[in-house]
């Protein structure tokens, strides 16, 4: 009995320690984001000066806007292309299906840097300069395969005779697809969309290769500010503390919110 309690608390301590290590840097930044000092290590008084700087710096606001718009746009396009692609693939002849499945796996397993390099060299070789279009294609190459991978399992779970029943009852193929198939696979479509957003928001490498000159996202801007910190002062760096804290809080709220919603839905279903 004593052994079990000891074992249990050891396990809890181990998991707790790893969690603490993972969260310590973020929590430290969160604490310092409400402090007036510009360098971690000093200690001033409570202040919102970093948040003020963040919301008054047009360059930083611009790169945040770029990141969000790019993520939403590429996730939306990837979800449409990937959902249609998954449907087409699933009902194709075996040989075509296999070929597309393998091609779909290439960006998933490949190192991001190889995908980015190959795509950019191809574009420039055929005379397409780097622009917002190439950036968008780059993000879609990265995201769409994951949308396909989250829709396919839902298609496998679906009862195929439903679609045929809809056709027999006089629905056009398009209508049957929209009214019968789509509602069945929508959870996969949504999780694909969410995954596409997170992949795009997080990306550094594909963006750096395919972006037009002068275009900055959070990733590229923070990377440049911290590694080539010549023109960036401590003030810019400290506004990242505020940015990290805001993103962290938004994510926690989102997770809590979706959990609560999920619980409510379950209760309603009961």
């Amino acid at each position: 009995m004593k052994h079990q309690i000891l074992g249990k608390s050891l396990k809890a301590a181990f998991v707790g320690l790893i969690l603490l290590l993972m969260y310590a840097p973020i929590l430290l930044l969160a604490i310092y984001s409400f402090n007036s000092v510009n360098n971690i290590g000093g200690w001033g008084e409570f202040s919102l000066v970093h948040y003020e700087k963040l919301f008054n710096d047009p360059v930083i606001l611009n790169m945040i806007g770029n990141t969000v718009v790019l993520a939403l746009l590429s996730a939306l396009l990837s979800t449409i292309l990937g959902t249609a692609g998954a449907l087409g693939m699933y009902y194709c002849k075996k040989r075509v299906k296999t070929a597309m499945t393998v091609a779909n796996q290439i960006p998933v397993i490949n190192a991001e840097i190889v995908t980015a390099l190959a795509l950019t060299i191809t574009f420039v070789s055929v005379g397409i300069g780097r622009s917002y279009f190439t950036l968008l294609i780059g993000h879609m190459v990265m995201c769409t395969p994951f949308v396909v991978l989250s829709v396919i399992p839902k298609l496998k779970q679906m009862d195929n005779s439903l679609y045929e029943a809809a056709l027999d009852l006089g629905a056009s193929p398009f209508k049957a697809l929209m009214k019968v198939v789509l509602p069945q696979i929508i959870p996969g479509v949504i999780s694909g969309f969410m995954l596409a957003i997170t992949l795009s928001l997080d990306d550094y490498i594909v963006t750096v290769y395919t972006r037009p000159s002068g275009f900055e996202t959070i990733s590229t801007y923070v990377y440049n500010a911290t590694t080539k910190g010549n023109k960036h002062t401590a003030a810019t760096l400290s506004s990242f503390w505020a940015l990290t804290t805001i993103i962290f809080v938004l994510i926690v709220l989102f997770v809590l919110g979706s959990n609560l919603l999920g619980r409510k839905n379950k209760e309603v279903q009961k």
Partner: protein
Amino acid sequence: MKFRFSRKTLGIPYAVFLLFFVIIPMLVILFYAFTTTETDASGAEHFSFALSNFGKFFSDPTKLSTIVYSLVIALVTTVICLLIAYPVAYILAMSKLKKKFVILMLFVLPMWINFVLRVNALREIFNLLSLSPAFEWLQSANYFKTIFGMVFDFLPFMILPLYTTIMKIDKSLYEASSDLGGNALTTFTRVTLPLSMPGIMSGVTMVFLPSMTNYVVSDMLGNAKVTIIGKFIYDYFCNDWHMGSMVALILLIVVFLSTLLTGGFGSEENVRGANL
């Protein structure tokens, strides 16, 4: 002819997309890796077939030593990730807590913060620690900081597939093992470990590859002293596409072989926790 809608036609746009933006770029890499550009007397550039890219790269001792360092960094990162992630995944999967899903969420949650910002947070904490005399050695411990940063960043990629596979193991197998006289250790080594191999494999590939190629971590934490294979490709991208493609091709072959070995082309294990 009247266009008739069918489900198959929906796949055409994606098939075209895959052909132009996935298949053809891979062929372009192949082409560049095996050619060099020559400028003739009139100033026009033309390509010629050559294997010299490989020779040039592999006869350069500094390049080779960087590759070895990069492989060692990736290997150490992967092993540490596995040593931390396996117990965590195992404890969580075996736990009878009702709320264990919440704890798993806590491990996944940092993944949604932009990873450059996360690495930046770690950079700040290292700076803070190195102010105190006890941690002064951190200032020049570039390899330590790089590996720590990679573990910090890629740990969730290891925990998730491990947790999923350990959860899938049929609980009655444990009972069977103990009924047949196996103690806890035998049960672990003969039942749990072999059955969680697919999770280990997919976790290892998801950590090993980025830790060879994701140069953001090594640049931000390693004071520009740590070079990994990914940085090579970027440097070549700026001046020599043939060499860059050659390095990319080598990475491509490594990935392809490891995928064939682990049978990853058909599996849906590596969806990065999409269906969580």
